[in-house]
């Protein structure tokens, strides 16, 4: 019944607009900005400095987008992240001078975990709609922040957080080269071991492409190896989350729980545990972001990060994450974040009037999403046609069945 010969190879599927649309949209955006910028006689849009800026500006929302994606994959929804981050930042700065960095950060993260747990319990155990629950915690937690700060902004004297979150870290070129070579080697080894070298080598494109990218950066843009700490954290978390989602049973189960909770339950998966775990994790990471955010200026005020949740969800959805659960790829959500911040970076660089920025931003958002939705649909139709032309499968073994 299935017809393997007629199937497009995996790599082609992975490169199809349906799967990689957000990447193409990002590349297109960068191309447009680069060309416009150079047409206006400005310095190269793709300079190390500018690229680093975009990364740095995206880092915190990017981290939130990673774990929002996890929550969305699990089939839930979390509007409370920005408030949670604000609370964690506030708690950290309130405590750091009196109790030291360790206690402050721990307390902040505990707050995040607590908000996540409250969300988790209300949604999974009481059964209230996640939208209402997290809208409630969004409001209530923001209220707690306002009550703590009482209309004032606060600044800490202890600069440990400041130093950490504004610090930079450079990946030595040698290490980068080693990583690049290792990635390519891994792709080759995997391909050779499997036999079908050509096919496998193509299939392993993310691996060797990443390797080449790292080598290219190390070779031609070594400055890009020097990044702010939050950027490295975002990259590290994206990597870990991707690996866990892709290569562990936990990841599989999370997708299953979000894709069809009943099917997952009947297969013996503890649905509540996964869904609640995603909420708590999201709370914890929101707290981490809050601490990094507070650390950036060692200061918070009551409106910190207000409205950030919509940006985060937009990034995840732009990255192709389904709002109905069961699908999503964290790296694509990070690229969704990068699109959003590249856009505002582009406005700044090209000096587009602030009154028009929202018009452009909204239009680009919809255009990007339309572009890859439309092409992926055409793509599917094309794909079907192509398969049709292929030779039919061999007849199945016939088992004549006679009626009783």
């Amino acid at each position, binding site marked *: 019944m299935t017809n393997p010969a007629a199937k497009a190879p995996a790599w082609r599927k992975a490169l199809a607009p349906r799967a990689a649309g957000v990447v193409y949209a990002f590349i297109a955006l960068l191309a447009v900005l680069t060309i416009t910028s150079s047409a206006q006689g400005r310095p190269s849009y793709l300079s190390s400095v500018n690229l680093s800026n975009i990364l740095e500006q995206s880092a915190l929302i990017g981290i939130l987008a990673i774990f929002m994606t996890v929550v969305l994959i699990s089939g839930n929804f979390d509007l409370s992240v920005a408030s949670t981050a604000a609370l964690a930042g506030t708690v950290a700065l309130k405590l750091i001078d009196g109790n030291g960095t360790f206690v402050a950060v721990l307390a902040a993260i505990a707050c995040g975990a607590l908000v996540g747990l409250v969300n988790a319990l209300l949604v999974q155990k009481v059964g209230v709609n996640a939208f209402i629950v997290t809208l409630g915690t969004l409001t209530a937690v923001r209220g707690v922040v306002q009550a703590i700060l009482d209309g*004032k902004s606060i*600044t800490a004297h202890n600069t440990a957080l400041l130093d950490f979150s504004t610090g930079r870290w450079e990946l030595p070129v040698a290490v980068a080269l080693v990583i690049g070579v290792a990635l390519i080697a891994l792709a080759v080894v995997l391909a050779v071991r499997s036999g079908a070298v050509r096919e496998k080598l193509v299939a392993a494109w993310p691996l060797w492409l990443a390797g080449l990218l790292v080598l290219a950066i190390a070779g031609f843009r070594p400055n890009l190896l020097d990044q702010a700490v939050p950027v490295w954290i975002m990259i590290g978390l994206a990597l870990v989350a991707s690996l866990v989602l892709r290569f562990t049973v936990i990841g599989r189960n999370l997708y299953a729980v979000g894709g069809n909770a009943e099917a997952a339950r009947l297969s013996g998966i503890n649905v509540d545990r996964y869904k609640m775990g995603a909420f708590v994790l999201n709370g914890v990471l929101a707290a981490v972001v809050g601490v990094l955010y507070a650390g950036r200026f060692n200061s918070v005020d009551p409106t910190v990060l207000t409205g950030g949740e919509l940006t985060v969800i937009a990034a995840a959805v732009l990255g192709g994450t389904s709002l109905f659960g069961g699908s999503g790829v964290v790296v694509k959500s990070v690229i969704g974040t990068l699109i959003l911040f590249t856009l505002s970076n582009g406005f700044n660089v090209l000096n587009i009037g*602030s009154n028009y920025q929202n018009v452009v931003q909204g239009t680009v958002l919809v255009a990007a999403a339309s572009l890859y939705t439309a092409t992926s649909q055409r793509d599917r139709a094309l794909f079907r046609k192509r398969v049709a032309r292929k030779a039919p499968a061999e007849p199945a073994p016939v088992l004549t069945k006679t009626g009783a």
Partner: protein
Amino acid sequence: NTESSGDSAEPPAQQKQLTIGLANQQESVTFPAAISEGAKKKAAELGVKLVTLDSQGDQAKQASQVQDLIAQKVDGIILVPLSPGPAQALVDQADAAGIAVGTAHGYVGADRKPEDPYSKLKFIVTEDEVGSGATAGEMAVKAVPNGGKVAVITGAAGFQENTTRVSDFTKALETKGGFTVVATQPGNWTKQDGQAACQNILAANQDVALFYAISDDMAVGCGAAIKAANSTAKVIGIGGAQVGIDAIKDGTMYGTVCYKPFDEGGQAVQQMYDALTGKLTGAPKTNFYETPGVTKDNVDSCVPQW
């Protein structure tokens, strides 16, 4: 949010205790929060009962709060308008109910200037936003005497300050000559977004000599961006907020314009008190309180109030 103050203070020669309503913008924002603090303190001094309500930035809510104050039959309402146009309808309502209204940190009437108060008001206490822009411009001209590239960081799109605080700033630069404004970009009133805007502008124009950010928060963010980019650009803010004053002291910022929301709130209560007790009569006047420019040289003259 109501604070009754003045129970302890000695009631002045007045039969009935006066009640004043303060319809504030958004007390989770530090500036209006400080207005409210100043108003409370002054009310306590004067033995006036102050009812403060927070619209949380919502125009419709501010309208219903004014309604609520009218229903409570307060003697006077101090309005911190979210926006001059819609606010006029609120003033009309209060006026129709025979309740005195004045504004703080803003005025009413979409096509008016603050200098020309709406006739149904008793007074306006506010900053001279256009004048502050001019003050910032004067500082800029001193900070970068030889001229050069300038970038302006505005608040979030849609705020009137984006024009009022900028128009006379640019005029001052033009008068002096030798300046070009290479970018005007929003920093959304926050340090982080101010930092991002400045980073991005610096990437496109390495030789910007001066950033003018129309609030101290954004100016501080901008300062961080300048430092990271090893630029020598100077930053001027507006506000005289704690962060701004600290940044001037440590050299991150060149200067700012000193706003005093705490005093402003107190002054508004005083004006209202005067209006209710008959000391303030006649056509309404606009009171621009002093908003001096502050640099390292005179930084101690500006005691941060928010």
